[in-house]
């Protein structure tokens, strides 16, 4: 999985490319987000436009870090999840936990 992190207006913008699933992908994303939280950054935007599939370990990661960011006064917001990712999040009942945006700009602006 490719992970690209940028900072825009005090928001960490994390761009993912590849399947978010158990193994290296989930491990790498966990490290990136833990580092952000360790640096005091709890306002996170996850761009999922190039993530065709999220498995249950990826979902678990998103749910846990959503709670962690909210505890720190921030949030974890999603941008452009694929149709199948949305279907999967809905199936397990967590879709409505997340704020979802059509593009990075709208997600970043929502933190203002």
């Amino acid at each position, binding site marked *: 999985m490719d992970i690209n992190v940028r900072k825009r207006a005090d928001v960490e913008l994390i761009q993912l490319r590849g399947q978010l699933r*158990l193994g290296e992908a989930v491990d790498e994303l966990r490290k990136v987000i833990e580092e952000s939280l360790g640096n005091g950054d709890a306002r996170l935007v996850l761009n999922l436009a190039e993530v*065709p599939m999220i498995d249950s370990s990826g979902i*678990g990661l998103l*749910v*846990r870090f959503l709670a962690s960011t909210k505890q720190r006064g921030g949030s974890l917001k999603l941008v452009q999840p694929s149709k199948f990712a949305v279907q*999967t999040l809905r*199936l*397990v009942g967590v879709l409505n*936990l997340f704020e979802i945006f059509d593009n990075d700009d709208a997600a970043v602006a929502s933190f203002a």
Partner: protein
Amino acid sequence: MTPDPRDNGKEGELTSVLDVSMPANSNAIAATADTITETLGQLGVPEEKQLEIQLAVQEALANAVVHGCKNDSSKQVRCRVKRNAACAIVITITDPGPGFSPSYLPDPRSAQQLQEGHGRGVFLIRQLMDEVSFESGGNQITMWKY
């Protein structure tokens, strides 16, 4: 009388299309799931159905590696893929672990479970596949997609 299309999809002799074993290592799961997806593509399975099967396989392999084998990479997980003439796909995943009782799993959509970081795998498999059964005390799962 019109036959039940689900029964119809299961009828016919099954042909083996893949039989692979992998070490019980979480980093080996993705490659095995991808190999199965490539095989489904070669069989002409539609892309949407490929994704559903791939995710179910991913979850079943993860359960076998993490719970069945306790991440002991000296153990092996076996994955068999078969099809019939109607292109129904049946996938069987077997691990050497003690098994488990799938009937006692909580609903991950319940208020108590919703914020949990785990416990969604078997639920997802059941939602994504058309028929799912556990054999050998729970250390073998068979999943059908019609």
